[in-house]
């Protein structure tokens, strides 16, 4: 029997189905399972065109629950494409169990890295730069983000998918290995600095609290005192306070938002906050 080899066309089709359809039919119960199933479909059809039983066995493999960070997760889909090809060629050590063990083992770590690297760092950095280009309502920033992010996502995912197919699990080792860690640490620092700059440029928490002398002149304007210590100090304090509530007190973002409403209300009542607007 001639060795089966997935055609470039089938692989491309599998990739595009994952790129587009990883979450289109999301439910709380199955999450990305259907996206995965549809992505493997053209590959399995090509490998098992003449053997409906093996086709069914292979498709059943991908019925198992799957969920990860979809951009970085392309590498897992690529790895399984390679494994499926090996199984079609009769590799003895590849069966449904090994494939699903691998999927289950990889989806957690890849989701962790992907959420912090792609969603938590790369996207915010790009958005930060884009917001810097949006001064005065210019559409430049939004256009910049649309182009750069989509090129990055498409070609990045493509690269990961085909690396996963070619190299198997070795490709994943690169992501979680030492060089991967060094890159992540560098990018995280970059993200931290950019986000700091975004906070200072786009958030403005100010107090209107002041003490007045008998002549009605303000002799102590609290905001000025804050700014003389560290410009934007009140903004930084509030950000760190919210971080503390969520990271150390385990409050959900929604509860923190609720608490801010209370703080704002009390602050307005005692005169700490006053936007100073009137019709």
């Amino acid at each position: 029997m001639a060795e089966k080899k997935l055609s470039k066309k089938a692989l491309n089709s599998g990739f595009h189905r994952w790129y587009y359809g990883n979450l289109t039919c999301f439910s709380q119960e199955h999450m990305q399972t259907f996206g995965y199933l549809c992505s493997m479909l053209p590959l399995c059809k090509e490998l098992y065109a003449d053997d409906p039983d093996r086709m069914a066995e292979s498709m059943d493999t991908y019925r198992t629950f799957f969920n990860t960070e979809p951009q970085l997760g392309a590498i897992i889909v690529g790895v399984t494409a390679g494994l499926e090809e090996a199984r079609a060629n009769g590799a003895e050590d590849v069966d449904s169990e090994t494939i699903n063990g691998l999927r289950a083992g990889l989806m957690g770590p890849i989701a962790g890295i992907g959420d912090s690297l792609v969603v938590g760092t790369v996207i915010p950095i790009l958005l930060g730069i884009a917001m810097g280009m949006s001064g005065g309502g210019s559409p430049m920033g939004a256009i910049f983000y649309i182009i750069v992010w989509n090129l990055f996502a498409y070609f990045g995912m493509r690269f990961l998918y085909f690396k996963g197919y070619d190299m198997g699990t070795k490709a994943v080792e690169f992501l979680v290995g030492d060089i991967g860690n060094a890159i992540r640490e560098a990018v995280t620092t970059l993200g931290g600095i950019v986000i700091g700059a975004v906070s200072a440029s786009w958030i403005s928490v100010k107090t209107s609290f002041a003490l007045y002398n008998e002549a009605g002149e303000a002799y102590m304007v609290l905001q000025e005192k804050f700014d003389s210590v560290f410009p934007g100090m009140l903004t930084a304090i509030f950000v760190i306070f919210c971080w503390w509530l969520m990271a150390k007190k385990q409050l959900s973002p929604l509860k923190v938002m609720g608490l801010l409403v209370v703080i704002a209300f009390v602050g307005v009542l005692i005169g700490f906050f006053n936007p100073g607007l009137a019709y």
Partner: protein
Amino acid sequence: MSINIVQAIILGLFASLSSMPGLGGTSIGNYTLGRPLVGGLICGIVLGDIPTGILVGCAMQVVYIALVTPGGTVSADVRAVSYIGIPLAMIALKSYGLDPASAEGTALATSFGTMVGTIGTVLFYGTATMNLVWQHMGWAWVDKREYDKLPLVDYVFPWISHICFSLIPTVAMCMAGEPVVNLIKEKLPMDGIPMKTLFTVGALLPCVGIAILLKQIVRNVLDFIPYLFGFTLAASMGINLVASTVVAGLFAILIFKLKMLELRKPAAASSSAAADNGWDDDEEDI
């Protein structure tokens, strides 16, 4: 400013494409069209005021800069933020006559958008629940080995979920928005406690967005230093965001090189031990 039915339907279609799960896919739908900055551009084009759209989008983007939805638990829905919240905030700004670039304009937009976004989580759960129906049909087809029908489940039927939970709610809320905004304006004076609170909340809310992001990157207190460094660049030194990124990039390169050096050190040490006085020889060469 008002929204007519055609504009509302266009916004509704974009709402269906964006968000998680959206029909534009994750990269194009959720992470491009769903971002408030991009939503601001699209709302600006549809409603005929790009600068206001962009500025409202930017204001809202700070709140949702780190919208990660681990395991599908959401605290806000981007389709609601971007295609219901932004248009309504634009209407409110026009109605109140506020400059969208001012701190007050930003605060009002943020308050409106976040309120809508929080309510919008209903849309997320609605879509995800309705998708269960299509998936149920899909499993039946897998059992019957009718695999060619599977793409229907992933690419076609979810449109029905989105017409029910993205398109129709967006059209309804955008159309109803203007009278509601006007009612609020009539009933609540701007120097009263409720509106003052609303504006103050609007200024405070972005702190939550940034804090969600910091939760991802801050492991110990020292990790706050890069953040505060960036803050200082912009607040004290007045460096803009693009320039700050360049400075940040330099630090990223330094850290990467240091880390790589750390990795090579054990290897270098063992090779120099093997070669007789390897380090000294190297120095003489220089």
